[in-house]
């Protein structure tokens, strides 16, 4: 199993290590609840170095992205980023990703760890013209600093006025930590104000420790994958393999807003057809009425009829009840409707809610 550059630090801090996509990462340090609450009220630091980073460069880089993304890359300017996905010819999602424009002809893609190899294969298959695809994942560590106190934590380590001005979805490429170059974007996966830091592997441990030490009196704590999941679920962010898959279009995941490109990209025909006919399935988010907890894969019913399944379910520390997202027949349940989640052969009541359950608080 693979280890991130922060593996020893996690052991030192009492991280409970688990296998995630072939990587050893902490699921928690103290408790998922504590780390979740800390991130919502102060700051949580996450090691997500397992994620993939790919640089696309060259005069034909933009044209390349135009051919693959349903979200128009020409809307980007240097220093800006956007959430998007790679679709197959059926409109199914190969991976969801963030695309940063570093400069004219230079883009930085951040992809899921479990999909990196498949993504690289897909990108290379479609490579054409004067461009280069460079997988920099192996040398890149990624530290997410999320929460209302995250700007304070960063300010104590970086002493760079530009951080205070950094707008959401934008990136600073030339930050420095003790001589090590660090890229910082104002993005995240928690629903809180936060930042994602990209640093060469060799400098990761020093940066991680400096952030936690400097962040101590701001109440910053290390947080694991368990809290990362409950945070993103409350914010109703998709997770590949759950809300997204090669057999799920962005429309079926409630991501129709991603589809805005006027260019000819892979999957466009299928997506346009689905858009006009209406997708066969849609994504809902819901809150349990009672105390039972929905889990991935549980059936969803309405009026005794099977209408779909839970794509992600858990206990929500913020709402103190079970919450989840589910993929159901289009039209079978909308906001305000009562549904049943089948939990151990019993129907437990839930209510479809407006997405997101927890609104972005940055």
């Amino acid at each position, binding site marked *: 199993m693979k280890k991130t550059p922060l593996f020893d630090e996690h052991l030192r801090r009492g991280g409970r290590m688990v296998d995630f996509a072939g990587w050893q990462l902490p*699921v928690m340090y103290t408790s*998922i*609840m504590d780390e979740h609450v800390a991130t919502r009220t102060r700051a949580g630091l996450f090691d997500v170095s397992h994620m993939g980073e790919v640089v696309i460069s060259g005069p034909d880089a933009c044209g390349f992205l135009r051919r693959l993304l349903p979200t128009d890359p020409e809307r980007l300017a240097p220093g800006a980023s956007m959430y998007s996905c790679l679709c197959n010819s059926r409109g199914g999602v190969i991976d969801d990703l963030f695309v940063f424009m570093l400069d004219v002809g230079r883009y930085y893609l951040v992809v899921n760890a479990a999909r990196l190899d498949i993504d690289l294969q897909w990108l290379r298959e479609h490579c054409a013209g004067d461009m280069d695809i460079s997988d920099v994942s192996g040398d890149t560590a990624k530290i997410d600093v999320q929460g209302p106190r995250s700007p304070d934590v960063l300010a104590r380590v970086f002493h760079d006025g530009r951080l205070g001005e950094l707008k959401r979805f934008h990136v600073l490429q030339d930050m420095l930590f003790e001589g090590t170059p660090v890229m910082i974007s104002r993005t995240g996966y928690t629903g809180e104000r936060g930042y994602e830091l990209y640093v060469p592997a060799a400098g990761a441990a020093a940066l991680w420790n400096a952030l936690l030490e400097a962040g101590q009196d701001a109440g910053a704590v290390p947080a694991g994958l368990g809290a990362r*999941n*409950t945070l993103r679920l409350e914010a109703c962010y998709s997770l590949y393999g759950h809300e997204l898959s090669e057999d799920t279009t962005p429309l079926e995941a409630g991501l129709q807003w991603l589809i805005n490109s006027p260019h000819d990209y892979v999957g466009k025909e299928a997506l346009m057809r689905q858009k006009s006919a209406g997708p066969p399935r849609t994504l809902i988010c819901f809150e349990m009425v009672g*105390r039972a*907890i929905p*889990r991935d894969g549980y059936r969803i019913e309405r009026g005794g009829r099977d209408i779909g399944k839970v794509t992600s379910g*858990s*206990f929500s520390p913020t709402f103190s009840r079970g919450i989840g997202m589910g993929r159901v027949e289009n039209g079978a349940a909308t906001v305000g409707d009562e549904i049943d989640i089948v939990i151990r052969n019993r129907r437990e009541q839930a209510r479809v809610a407006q997405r997101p359950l927890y609104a972005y608080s940055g």
Partner: protein
Amino acid sequence: MSLIPENVYYTEQHEWIRFEPDGAATCGITDHAQEMLNDIVFVELPEPGRRVRRGDPVAVIESVKAVSDVYAPAGGTIVRVNSALEEQPELTNRDPYGEGWLFALEGSDRDEIAGLLDPAAYGDLVAREEEQQ
């Protein structure tokens, strides 16, 4: 250090059973188990009156992340359940051998003790599991 009280018996699935003076047997999960589960947020308890055999799944404990089955340490009839856990599932984390008890059995066969672990044997099991982590 995992708490392993002397006056109870243990199972390999990390349940404990304590034979009370009135003849009933109180059951729960061990300190090691609650530590592994971490934040317990939901407990589903059996119906009083239900007859169970040793090893039957009789309760479910849910942490934030996972669902875990609890097995009957001995056979018998469920005579009481800890309804306080409905509002306060975290009691099982805080006091797994006291206020966090799960259910009580009556009519258990004390001969079944032979198949249970005594505190020393359970301590060895916990030590072996902790080593593997």
